[in-house]
């Protein structure tokens, strides 16, 4: 071993790109003739929307480039692995990571692979990235989670889904987030709650999905508590902040309520106040982006980081869930100053998006299907909103006999 087991490993830097456009969840519900009163229960304010020339790879590239542009040549050379988590993969054999590796001009001595376990993919990639960084002193691992939902047109899930990517640089200088602080708790069970049998078809049983998410939460946390020699009180006592996979913010509220019910909150712990103080900070970004699948939990983590105290480390508990299903609970530490290090870039990236009408969103959803996995030929048009984003943006220029050709728009 080159490194003591407890040497810090974690997130050195992070970036977010959730498209250049958004649509109001309420406007979309109204447009579909859905009961707008349910918007409060769902808890989503906006849904991120992709341009006609953006897929999971181009979105990932736009996101990761923000991180890479801040590195010097030596730091770029230290990136030994690119781990790409997605459930919007473009090919059954060729990893989406190979496209991304090329777009980002990463070193030849950098490996890449694609990783999938529904919405748990982002955390799985983070942990694989941490393990790879731990065995190669001085090395960095670029972890990118990127997904684009299908439209789920006309359902109550539609307003709360989105598109987006989160990228994180993993190293032994975890300025943002230290990962290796506890033994994770795990729980798996077989389920068909959500799956994507073809590139444009999401099969979902809402009730089964919510019950499975919730049903895995308690066992995963109890496994965490047992393996870290603690009790269920740990949920209330040991974490300053909590971030959970956020299919929609209302689900996270339900999970926290389940914790009160299942673990028995200590006397004096009041649900609403506890939810506002420890959980709500993680929902700020997801509520204006929507569910971005493998990247959602990473977005929730960054939302918690951005709302953490600047002057001291914060203990963050993370619940990750991926349909099918696997769940995990782990603890990590938001480093002192992480909030400022993450900076206003993420806030600006999300607030600078152009809001489109539901009619425009419908046009864009149709365009997204024209470049989905399995399409042999395509040449996506530049949408009138393509120029809204400041800074470099990766775009799919064409598909030629299944081969995707990307380019940078600066």
């Amino acid at each position, binding site marked *: 071993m080159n490194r003591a087991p407890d040497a810090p490993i974690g997130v050195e830097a992070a970036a977010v790109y959730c498209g250049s456009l958004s649509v109001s969840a309420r406007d979309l519900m109204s447009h579909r003739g859905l009961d707008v009163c349910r918007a409060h229960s769902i808890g989503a304010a906006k849904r991120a929307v992709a341009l006609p020339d953006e897929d999971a790879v181009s979105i990932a590239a736009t996101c990761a480039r923000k991180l890479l542009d801040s590195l010097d040549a030596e730091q770029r050379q230290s990136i030994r692995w690119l781990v790409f988590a997605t459930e919007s993969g473009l090919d059954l054999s060729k990893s989406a990571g190979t496209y991304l590796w090329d777009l980002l001009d990463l070193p030849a001595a950098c490996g890449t692979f694609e990783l999938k376990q529904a919405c748990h993919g982002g955390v799985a990639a983070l942990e694989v990235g941490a393990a790879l960084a731990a065995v190669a002193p001085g090395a960095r691992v670029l972890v990118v989670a990127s997904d684009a939902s299908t439209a789920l047109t006309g359902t*109550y899930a539609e307003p709360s889904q989105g598109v987006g990517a989160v990228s994180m640089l993993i190293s032994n200088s975890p300025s943002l987030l230290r990962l290796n602080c506890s033994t994770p708790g795990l729980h798996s069970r077989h389920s068909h709650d959500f799956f994507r049998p073809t590139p444009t078809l999401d099969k979902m*049983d809402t*009730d*089964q999905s919510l019950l499975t998410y919730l049903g895995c939460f308690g066992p995963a946390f109890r496994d965490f508590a047992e393996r870290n020699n603690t009790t269920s009180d740990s949920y209330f006592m040991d974490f300053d902040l909590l971030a959970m996979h956020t299919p929609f913010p209302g689900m996270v509220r*339900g999970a926290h309520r389940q914790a009160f*019910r299942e673990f028995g909150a200590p006397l004096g712990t009041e649900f609403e106040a506890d939810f506002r103080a420890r959980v709500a900070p993680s929902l700020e970004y997801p509520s204006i982006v929507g569910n971005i699948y493998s990247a959602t939990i990473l977005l929730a983590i960054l939302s918690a980081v951005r709302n953490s105290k600047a002057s001291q480390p914060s203990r963050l508990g993370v619940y990750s869930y991926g349909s099918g299903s696997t769940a995990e609970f782990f603890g990590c530490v938001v480093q002192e100053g992480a909030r400022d290090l993450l900076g206003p870039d993420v806030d600006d990236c999300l607030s600078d998006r152009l809001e489109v009408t539901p009619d425009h969103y419908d046009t864009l959803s149709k365009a997204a299907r024209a470049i989905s996995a399995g399409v042999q030929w395509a040449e996506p048009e530049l949408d009138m909103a393509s120029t809204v984003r400041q800074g470099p943006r990766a775009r799919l220029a064409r598909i030629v006999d299944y081969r995707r050709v990307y380019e940078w728009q600066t």
Partner: protein
Amino acid sequence: MQADDKPAREVVEARISSALPELTPEDIRSSSTLSELGLDSMERLDIVVGSADDLGVIVDPRDFTSSNTIGDIALQLARSPRRSGAT
């Protein structure tokens, strides 16, 4: 062996009545789904999880789908294993 689902049905109906006080007992038919009664996904979740808590049973999510009727839900709850320590 056929599980006696009457206690489970009463618990589920009580939960529905609490969530939708404007409904009469006649409105809550065994053949209706929770969606048909106008409950959203989180309210449906609360009814299933709350009923399971009231009955002291552990639910298997695979037995509960969006197309389940109230009768289906009561039957599945009646068949669910009891939590350790539940009376």
